[in-house]
């Protein structure tokens, strides 16, 4: 008899492909977003089945906490911009101009090339090679942490991770350059349902985000996952206008954007000044340094993601009038 788990995996794989096709084929923008959210959810399950709980955690935090809200906000923004805010915004249709056949063909060719490249890389890889697991396991005692993924990300290939942190910083700089806008006045407190939810959920999200950061040293978790979870607090506060970005807070925000990159680079420079290679932490302090970097990066990621969600540099406060969040 076939192992039922294999059937589960097959269903999962088929479901992912079907959802991807459906997300592309759906013509109604709102349905498209919902299908994409479900796609993220199911792919998190797939990462779990591939024994990659770290990736699943990141997908869960980003997919459920940030992406959905971001897409919904974008849709709302588009509908306001195209002048349909009068009718029930969620039911309004956006009529995009038809895409020229040439563009479609060029896109198809490009995607086909990528798929081809992936196929070649997959077929060219050794079928049952040892991978890097052995090497990582061998070097673990020198890493200062107990979780291999964290050891690789923050120690063995820390330079790459630093660059990934810079990407987020670059993104928020670009957004603040392009979009400057008014912040709405703080809204009157929302209804009782929201208050009850906020009392229960917000502290819990903060605790879980911090826990993920801390547990990263010995189990799946870490700066990115923790930061993404904490960003959800920012999103909720921004959405309900419990917090409104104020021009006076720009300095603090800028500091928070840079904090992760700065702490990361500073540690590298300090270590290098001691006559070592940039990310060759002294073993006695390795865990402290890694946790320090991760803590700062977590804060940066949380604030940056929330700022990206807000999508503009706050220039002044608006006290009344039409809102366009």
């Amino acid at each position, binding site marked *: 008899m076939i*192992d*039922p*788990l294999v*059937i*589960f995996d097959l*269903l*999962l794989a088929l*479901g992912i492909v079907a*959802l991807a096709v*459906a997300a592309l084929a*759906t013509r*109604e923008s*709102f*349905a498209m977003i*919902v*299908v994409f*959210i*479900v796609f993220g*959810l199911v792919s*998190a*399950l797939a990462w*779990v*089945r591939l*024994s990659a*709980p770290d990736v*699943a*955690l990141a997908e*869960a*935090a980003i997919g*459920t*906490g940030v992406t*959905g*809200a971001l897409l*919904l*906000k974008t849709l*709302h923004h588009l*509908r*306001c911009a195209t002048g349909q805010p009068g009718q*029930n*915004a*969620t*039911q309004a249709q956006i009529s995009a101009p038809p895409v020229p056949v040439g563009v479609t063909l060029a896109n198809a060719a490009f995607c086909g090339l990528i798929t081809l490249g992936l196929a070649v890389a997959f077929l060219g890889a050794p079928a049952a090679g040892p991978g890097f697991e052995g090497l990582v396991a061998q070097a673990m005692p020198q890493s200062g942490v107990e979780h291999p993924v964290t050891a690789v990300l923050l120690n063995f290939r820390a330079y790459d991770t630093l660059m990934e942190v810079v990407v987020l910083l670059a993104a928020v700089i670009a957004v603040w350059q392009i979009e400057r806008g008014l912040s709405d006045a703080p809204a009157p407190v929302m209804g009782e349902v*929201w208050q009850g*939810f906020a009392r229960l*959920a917000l502290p*819990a*999200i903060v605790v*879980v985000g911090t826990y*993920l950061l801390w547990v990263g040293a010995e*189990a*799946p*978790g870490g700066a990115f*996952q923790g930061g993404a*979870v904490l960003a*959800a607090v920012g*999103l*909720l506060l921004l*959405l*309900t206008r419990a917090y409104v970005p104020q021009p006076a807070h720009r300095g603090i925000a800028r500091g928070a954007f840079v904090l992760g990159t700065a702490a990361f680079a500073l540690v590298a420079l300090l270590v290098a000044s001691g006559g070592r290679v940039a990310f060759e932490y002294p073993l006695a302090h390795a865990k402290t340094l890694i946790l320090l970097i991760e803590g700062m990066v977590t804060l940066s990621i949380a604030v940056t993601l929330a700022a990206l969600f807000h999508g503009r540099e706050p220039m002044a406060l608006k006290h009344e009038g039409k809102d366009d*969040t």
Partner: protein
Amino acid sequence: MTNFLSLILIVLLLSIFAGLIRVFRGPAPAERMLAAQLFGTASVAILLVLSQVMQMQALLDVALVFALLGAVTLVAFVVLAERGAR
């Protein structure tokens, strides 16, 4: 026991696929959105069962994140829909 749990997993996954009908047919946005919210609950269940089947404690954390953050999208949906109607 593992076989039994695996069967439960299949049933849970099929329940998600069944719910997709509501996502595709709609017609109201709220119907699509609430169906997607229910999938979050089903995913938590799948993760809890998987953590037993795969003997992986960390999956409980993933389930925790799903359960906690599932409502964020819903809050965005409700807030933005209300704002648009004004």
